[in-house]
């Protein structure tokens, strides 16, 4: 057992101290948002900085939960996140596994995947593709076009390659089909990677904002981020040229307490993902990056 020297103890304490300080700095905005969301508007206006509610007030949350558009968007975002992540995992995993086997054209497929990693089509061509495939104004426009993230695909493939071939060979000899091997051997062994990627995909779906605005023109189909944007940043358009926009605010933005409550409700669900998947996450992130 390695006994820590005096110098090492000091070094460790300094590290801990610095890390705690940095964490507090990062937590600080969130504490502020939390505090303001549970305070009354008067308290907020009277105090320069509020880090803990002076009086606990739930009006802001009541207002948000009574708002139909907000609740609808929560439902939409949940749907897109859950279904989208399942679609993502199914497609990414199967394509990644397929590319670990010797198939015709494997090199070209891999090259084209790599190509999309570096180059992106851009907004307008992507919009045209979505339009021509009839996905405009459908929630599937948020799920299908981005079904496979090339980076995730490549990493997952690396991960599959790191599973010893002997296991699948043995299964082959026993008469298993490729699909059975995939389903019964590879996938169960890949739980860490799958957990990690599901987290990445889920966060990306939960954050859908621009695609939702671009492809969906039915307010009932908007995601939570779009609605949140309307609530929180309702007083934009502040440039020297667009100065008049400021003057046209017929509906002033909701008070800051409601804005903060909206932020809390839009952020907390996805935050809760992390602790549950954390053990898989820590393991999964590093897997596949180094070939044994």
């Amino acid at each position, binding site marked *: 057992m390695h006994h820590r020297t005096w110098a090492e103890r000091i070094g460790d304490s300094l590290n801990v101290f610095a890390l705690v300080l940095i964490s507090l700095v990062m937590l600080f905005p969130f504490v502020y948002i939390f505090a303001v969301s549970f305070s009354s508007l008067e308290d907020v206006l009277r105090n320069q900085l509020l880090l803990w509610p002076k009086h606990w007030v739930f009006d802001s949350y009541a207002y948000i939960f009574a708002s139909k558009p907000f609740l609808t968007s929560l439902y939409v975002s949940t749907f897109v996140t859950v279904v989208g992540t399942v679609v993502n995992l199914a497609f990414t995993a199967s394509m990644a596994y397929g590319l670990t086997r010797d198939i015709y054209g494997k090199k070209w497929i891999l090259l084209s995947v790599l190509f999309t990693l570096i180059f992106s089509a851009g907004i307008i061509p992507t919009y045209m593709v979505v339009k021509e495939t009839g996905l405009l104004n459908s929630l599937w426009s948020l799920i299908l076009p981005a079904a496979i993230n090339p980076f995730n695909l490549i990493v997952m493939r690396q991960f599959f390659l790191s599973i010893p071939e002997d296991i699948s060979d043995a299964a082959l000899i026993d008469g298993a089909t490729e699909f059975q091997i995939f389903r019964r051997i590879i996938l169960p062994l890949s739980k860490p990677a799958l957990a990690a990627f599901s987290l990445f995909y889920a966060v990306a779906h939960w954050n859908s904002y*621009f695609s939702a605005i671009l492809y969906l023109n039915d307010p009932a189909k908007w995601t939570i981020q779009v609605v949140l944007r309307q609530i929180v940043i309702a007083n934009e358009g502040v440039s020297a040229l667009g100065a008049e926009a400021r003057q046209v605010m017929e509906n002033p933005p909701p008070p800051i307490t409601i804005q903060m409550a909206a932020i809390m409700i839009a952020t907390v669900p996805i935050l809760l993902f992390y602790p549950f998947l954390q053990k898989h996450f820590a393991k999964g992130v590093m897997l596949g990056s180094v070939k044994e």
Partner: protein
Amino acid sequence: MDKRALTAVLSAVLAVSAVACSSGGGGSAKEPSDASTNPNNEQPAGNDNKKYTITAIDFLFSGIPPKNGPGLQMINEKFNVDFQKDITVYSEYAQKLTTVISSGNILDIIGFETLDGKFYKWAEQGAFLELDDYIKDYPTLKMVAPDVWEPMKAKGKIYAIPRYFPATYLNSIVIRKDWLDNLGLAVPTNYEELKKVAIAFTKQDPDRNGKDDTYGLVLGQNINPNYAMGPYWDTGSWYHKDANGNFIPGFISEQRKELTQWLADLYKEGAVTKDFAFMNPTQYNAEFYSGKGGIYLGSPRGMNEEYMKGLVKIHPDAKIIALPPFKAPDGSQGFIAGSGYYTALALSAKLKDNPDKVRRILEMIDYGRQFIPLDQRNSKNEMFDWLYGKEGVGYTIQDGKVANAKPEDGLQPIQYMPDNKMWAPNDIDNQYSKTYVTPQLVSLVEDLEKVHSEYKHYINPIYQVNSPTYFEKAGELYNKLTETQSKMITGAVPISDWDKMVDEFLKNGGEQIIKEVNEGIKQKGYERSWK
């Protein structure tokens, strides 16, 4: 690098790239391609009992109604159309509009927030319908003044219909009269007096509460309000001329330099909002309405009852009045006029072969623009009652004022109408003061209406000309000027750097902008004019 470091770096890269917001790729706006696909069901020109399918795209700041609300059904019924309106959130509208139009999908009715380079470029490329011949047939279009049609033109033809915005009711400065009275001060009529008042508000406890918690000028990010008491001192007005007789933007004028020095002096005395450069509108608005700052902005249109009620709770004796414009050294005295419109609608050029459909669309637009005097905005006026969704359903009358149903229920046709802003014959006809309830707000707005009617307004030539470089670069250049001038106010940058700032502006495109704007001004034969 050893294995551990490699995995650490790769995992960091993976985590960072995956957890960052997903974006839709970094495309840039391209020129509109040849519109080959025609998404509309074009009906052949024929009788007027045809049911037309009309598509539209536009934006709203907030309160976006559902896609097929009852209000929309009422429109379809009344005008015999299938009206499909895509209402987008304001914040990404510019991007979305560019994408939609560039993909060849030119809808029948297209909303623009500002008529900028994109609008003129597309108009010149033939994306929109010429409207000149139709205007005489629609009363609300005939009411638009010639100088407001100017910005709608490209190559001399009209391509857009302006939406109403009072031409003369821009923001102007308002001041706490109760504080002036408490300190025995007269209403300031020039900058020396205003300076004294601002310092007095800061140091002499005008709200008489024994606490040192008040100050003079409320100021926020982007130097808003800019405290120009007339076009002579304004930033965005093209009022002054340079040595060659060319109009220049107020931002780089000597007069603005003097005003910047004035603001810097007051800032040093603590009479200006501290940290103003970081305050967003919500925050600096609160400075005034929480009773801290005594001088701020107001306008007859768009004032907020809740804010005023909040102020009255803190200072029950608050009385706010409008500050009339100062007399400038050149003898001018007046406010700055706006462009006379905010947002505009263009029609697709593809409608050229379907004049009956165009007339149906213009009928809908014209209907929404009809001016209904304030005292007729109730169920007795059939048009008003229909537009607002019928009394008891889309709206109710409370205390003599209209209370609308929740926007997300979509009960009111006016939420969906292509143009829903009444075109008032004159700004005063809006009678804004009568639309408010809080007494202090009513008296303030009455005062504002009075000063606006007593003083003339400067027509800013920048709205009349089309300078491509202006649309392309002015936003950025103006922002840079504002940034530097903000620093001059706080003292971070010395005012002696003014000339350097102006040179940078000129070098980075300002010179070209001035050249183009003045060409346009000469072409239209414009001289300094007021209305």
